[in-house]
């Protein structure tokens, strides 16, 4: 059973030899960049460079997927935001939004450009997905991600305003989320056309660290449902931070699997969602995988499996400076321990 078969069977609910170890979020490593001599800032706007970097984590460590993009700005950029890729710096910094689309409450009534899927880097992402598939698509699962509507709203307008309005004027925010859900669906369908095996929707702005479970259910969940109803490939809903009180709602979104980070009490979540629901997580990609020791990594992998995780999967993007011995320890421990349950 190769990595791709293992991941696909997992999504189908079929028998597999062990839990897979993959991600729906960025997992490029500095080891991978070193191999090609690429600079991180150069990856985001070049399909060849991006695909090489995305496939390198599989090539080097057997991490069981290839995922693009590496930043959270693709949809916002296609909608008209300006981004900063920090090309002037040697350090690894992820692109951010430099110029927002909506500057005040009165500008929230946006329309999606008719040529939306041809704008920004959406065509580039399709090309990139094609290259990764050619490179490792027969052996490893190929994934991509889009933002959730609330998180995307936080990219195109001030988060401060969005949060207050979600309380003061939920109807107005709901209307914006509905429009953004359409933009997200259009983007995800393009990635499907390019041949991805699975798509992760990252709705980290809706974490219970920030928003009440009630607001999540009333204001955000309906638009997540709208998105998942339109996607045909396997899907994952990722929310970081506190998620124990919304885990059941996350599954109700229609996502095939849910993904949580280290702040979730997975043993408790597993009890709530039942044995068969797919639950991905939840190791800390910085404090364990980058800053921890190989022994700490192994312990964490075993705990995730004991708690009832369906796939060993990071709580966020993997920070590139991960030491090779740690990622090797993770892969090795998954192989040793991941078939036990």
């Amino acid at each position, binding site marked *: 059973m190769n990595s791709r078969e293992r991941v696909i069977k997992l999504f189908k609910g079929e028998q597999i030899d062990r839990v897979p170890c993959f991600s729906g979020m960025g997992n490029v490593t500095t080891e991978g960049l070193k191999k090609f001599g690429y600079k991180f800032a150069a990856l985001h706007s070049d399909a060849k460079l991006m695909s090489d970097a995305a496939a390198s984590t599989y090539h080097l460590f057997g991490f069981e997927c290839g995922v693009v993009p590496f930043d959270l700005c693709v949809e916002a950029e296609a909608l008209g935001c300006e981004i*900063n890729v*920090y090309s002037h*710096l040697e*350090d*690894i*910094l*992820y692109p*951010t*939004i430099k110029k927002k689309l909506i500057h005040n409450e009165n500008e929230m009534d946006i329309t999606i450009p008719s040529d939306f899927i041809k704008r920004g880097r959406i065509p580039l992402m399709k090309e990139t997905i094609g290259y990764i598939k050619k490179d490792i698509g027969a052996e490893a699962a190929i994934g991509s991600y889009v933002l959730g509507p609330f998180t995307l709203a936080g990219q195109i307008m001030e*988060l*401060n305003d969005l*949060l*207050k309005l*979600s*309380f*003061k004027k939920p109807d107005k925010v709901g209307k914006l989320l509905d429009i953004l859900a359409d933009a997200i669906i259009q983007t995800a369908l393009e990635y499907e056309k390019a041949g991805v095996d699975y798509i992760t929707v990252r709705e980290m702005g809706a974490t*219970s*660290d*920030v*928003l*009440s479970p009630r*607001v999540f259910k009333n204001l955000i969940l309906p638009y997540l449902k709208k998105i998942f109803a339109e996607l045909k490939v396997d899907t994952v809903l990722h929310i*970081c*931070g506190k998620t124990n009180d919304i885990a059941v709602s996350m599954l109700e979104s229609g996502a095939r699997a849910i993904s949580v980070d280290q702040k979730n009490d997975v043993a408790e979540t597993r009890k709530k969602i039942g044995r068969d629901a797919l639950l991905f997580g939840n190791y800390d*990609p*910085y*404090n364990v995988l980058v*800053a921890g020791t190989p022994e700490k990594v192994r312990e964490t992998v075993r705990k995730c499996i004991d708690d009832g995780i369906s796939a060993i999967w990071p709580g*966020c*993007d993997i*920070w590139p*400076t991960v030491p090779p011995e740690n990622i090797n320890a993770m892969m090795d421990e998954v192989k040793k321990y991941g078939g036990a349950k």
Partner: protein
Amino acid sequence: MVDEAKKKEVLEKMKNAVIQYDEDVCKEGAQEAVDLGMDANEAIFEGLVAGMEEVGRLFEAQEYFVPEILMCADALYAGLEILKPHCKQMDLGVRGSVVIGTVEGDVHDIGKNLVKMMFDVAGFHVYDLGRDVPLDKFVDEQLKTDSELVCLSAMMTTSMVGMPKVIEKIKEKNPDCMIMIGGAPTSKELADKWGADGYAEDASNALKEAIKMVSFLKKLRAEKLNK
């Protein structure tokens, strides 16, 4: 002499306006305090800060979330704006200045702004560098202003890795400067490892830490007055 019962009523009004995120009522209360000739510092600490302390408790109890806190902060600032010009310099031995900002690569500033609010309330001089701030700017600003405290914020794991560089540079030039780091990915271990003097793992914890600090000032102030 201000009527004690009336004074209590005005303080209570401001406190509740902060808790119920009512900017207009908070302004009204602050104006009444000024008109009555009440001590502005007392109005800030026993009215506005008392309200924020309760907001912190409500947040911890998960009755309030970030949107509510942001609205409470707006109410607090509305009152503070009116009271600030009437403040006498407090002699609490902690008068000082702070450099605060979100590190380059990160455009999130909610946690940073909540901490800034508590410094504003406590009468600190705040040099707010904003967000997505180049690392060297923190070092330069600290040297330029000789601030006792530098607060670095990052919400994303992907941006906090620049923090140790700033800490090292500042401590090298000015070992007495206190440095606080904040943001979702930070931890006590990281703060220790990087040589930071304090940390707060998210906006709520940052607010909690800042409230604790200001509550301490409040207590100090009360003790001083009772002597």
